[in-house]
């Protein structure tokens, strides 16, 4: 029966190897821009990644330690029978060890308290509405089954005014600039998830929740819904575009606004066929 301990040992080895391999493979690691496997694009994302790595290191070390003890115990104390089929080593019973129990309760408790306290600052910087950046809002995003309605304030900078730009599933902001959005839901719970910016926030019917993020890389990213919200949940994907400069963003916004204000077609279309 010793083979079982070897099997468990191999399983543990495979798990550890997978985690050692992960930081070198884009599909296995955290969502980061191509070519920059270890660069999180957002300021708060880097803090979150750091916390994540600390927890990964702690749990990884504990995992290795417990697996070594487990496999070694299973190997060494495997059952052995003599010629009559009786155990070579009869079982003995002990009533526990008070000191050992205190130790293995206090040490994990201390680690958990450390994790709980250490992340408080990051949590506050990400989630406390009082810590929201003092910038004009980029947009109001209303989740509904099954899309994100993105309302930009338009040229006057005020939301819910006649010059608002309203787009579906299309979030644009500027590089190296704090973006603040107000998140709403018009039906059920959704969750606003920007994997590259490490932002995940539930959209709750009846609440307006400020969410903020930034990016130090321009390019296209992804928006997803992270709360199972109905049959079309998987369709709630959005485009996220980070513009290199403010001017580029303004140009895009004014083009989209011109389209939203379109009152005539540019040219005769569809002369023949489709």
């Amino acid at each position: 029966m010793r083979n079982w301990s070897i099997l468990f040992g191999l399983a543990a080895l495979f798990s550890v190897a997978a985690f050692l391999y992960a930081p070198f493979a884009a599909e296995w690691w955290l969502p980061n821009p191509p070519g920059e496997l270890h660069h999180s694009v957002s300021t708060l994302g880097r803090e979150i990644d750091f916390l994540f790595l600390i927890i990964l290191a702690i749990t990884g070390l504990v995992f290795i330690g417990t697996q070594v003890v487990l496999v070694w115990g299973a190997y060494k104390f495997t059952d052995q029978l003599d010629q009559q089929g009786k155990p070579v080593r009869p079982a003995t019973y002990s009533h526990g060890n008070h000191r050992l129990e205190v130790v293995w309760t206090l040490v994990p408790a201390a680690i958990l308290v450390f994790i709980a306290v250490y992340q408080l600052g990051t949590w506050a910087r990400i989630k406390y509405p009082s810590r929201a950046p003092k910038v004009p809002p980029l947009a109001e995003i209303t989740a509904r089954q099954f899309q994100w309605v993105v309302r930009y304030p338009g040229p006057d900078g005020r939301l819910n005014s006649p010059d608002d730009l309203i787009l579906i599933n299309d979030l644009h902001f500027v590089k190296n600039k704090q973006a603040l959005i107000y998140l709403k839901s018009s039906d059920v719970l959704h969750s606003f998830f920007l994997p590259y910016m490490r932002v995940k926030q539930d959209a709750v019917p009846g609440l307006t929740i400020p969410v903020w993020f930034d990016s130090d890389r321009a390019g296209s990213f992804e928006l997803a819904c992270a709360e199972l919200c109905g049959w079309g949940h998987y369709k709630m994907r959005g485009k996220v575009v980070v513009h290199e400069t403010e001017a580029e963003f303004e140009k895009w916004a004014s083009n989209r606004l011109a389209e939203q204000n379109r009152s005539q077609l540019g040219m005769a279309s569809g002369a023949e066929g489709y």
Partner: protein
Amino acid sequence: MITRSRFIAALGLAGLLVTSVGCTDSLNAGPLVYVDNEALTHELKGKANLAGKPALQAKVRAALARLYGDSPNQIRVPEGSGFPRGGLTLANHRQIGEGESARIEPIQALLPNGSPDPAHRQAGGFALYRRNCLHCHGVSGAGDGPTATFLFPRPRDFRKGVYKFTSTPSGAKPHRDDLTRSIRDGLLGTSMPAFDALMSPSEIEQVVDYVMFLSMRGETELALIEEGSISDEKDADALGDDIVKEIATGVFEKWKSAQSQVMNPSTPRTASDRASVLRGRDLYLGRTKEKLECAGCHGALAKGDGPSFVPVDVFNMVVFGGDPSTRQERVDALDEKLRTLWNQKPDDWGNPLRPTNLNRGVFKGGRRPIDLFWRIAKGINGAQMPAHYPTLNEAQIWDLVNFVLALEHDPDLLASVPPAPAPRLAESGSTR
């Protein structure tokens, strides 16, 4: 001990088998087939049908298979349907040439190393439709997919070839770009999502092709049923090749001709100043010589609660107040006045209809001024919204557009005028 390990091994093998089989067609309940139009086999009151005419039914099925292919997996694009660009990328196959002599080859996109690319097996309009659209719009485009029952408004049945949000004249087929817009931007306020972030522009074009294909197929089927309903079951020449060809050509021509009939306002939008908005308000309230009856449906406060439709709470009770399959029972339980009103106002597909609340700034067919211009000028196909051009001239329509767009941000616009003395159905309150 031994029995248990065998059991575990069997369990593991079963799990492996299930995951390796994955999502192939072998797990479908049956082969993927087009569903017959109900009128082909059922007696429908007031509608042409072929109930009890098996020979003609068989002829319709054979004609459809010859024109459009046997099943969704074996599509044929009929000759003369005129899909010059696109349209020929079918379900994992590519059609070379047109009509019955066309050659159909599997799509074989290759990886750099020369082996077939597994990601490209699901290519073409039908493959995309199957992944993104079928669960609402159904295999035949009848708006009868498995999720359809739970939606309001119901997903569009393509087989009538009627589309609501178009840029072509009232009653005409849509322009191709109208369909592209509906898929790309979605229909806000309905369950139709925007696919801009889910499909590339060329993929959306392929889906447009396939939707048009399903429409043409459905329209041909309906026209054949109509023709068959006045033909003699025993007449060997009934629904002959010539007639089928003529009917199909008629369907294609309607689509083709609509492509050059887009209505483009000759004057740009009037500046949205207060005077224009107030002129629009007078038009809306019927205080001009045109005597428009907008408020009759959309309500004195434009909340979508005019007296020509049942009150909102009654509507909500019938449509949302229980199991969708028992809706008729809830209609039957209404008092006679409400029931009459209810039965007068379905859409062309027989589904319940509701005038839009114009205060919310949610416009299914788009919020661009030109979209609203089209809605007012040409009405909404299949719904009760009538065309107003040329009753109204373009300037008047622009005033109305400005008024409608101003409502969202100026709730007092209508509340501040005394309600027009329109005849109200005073007793038509709720049934409970």
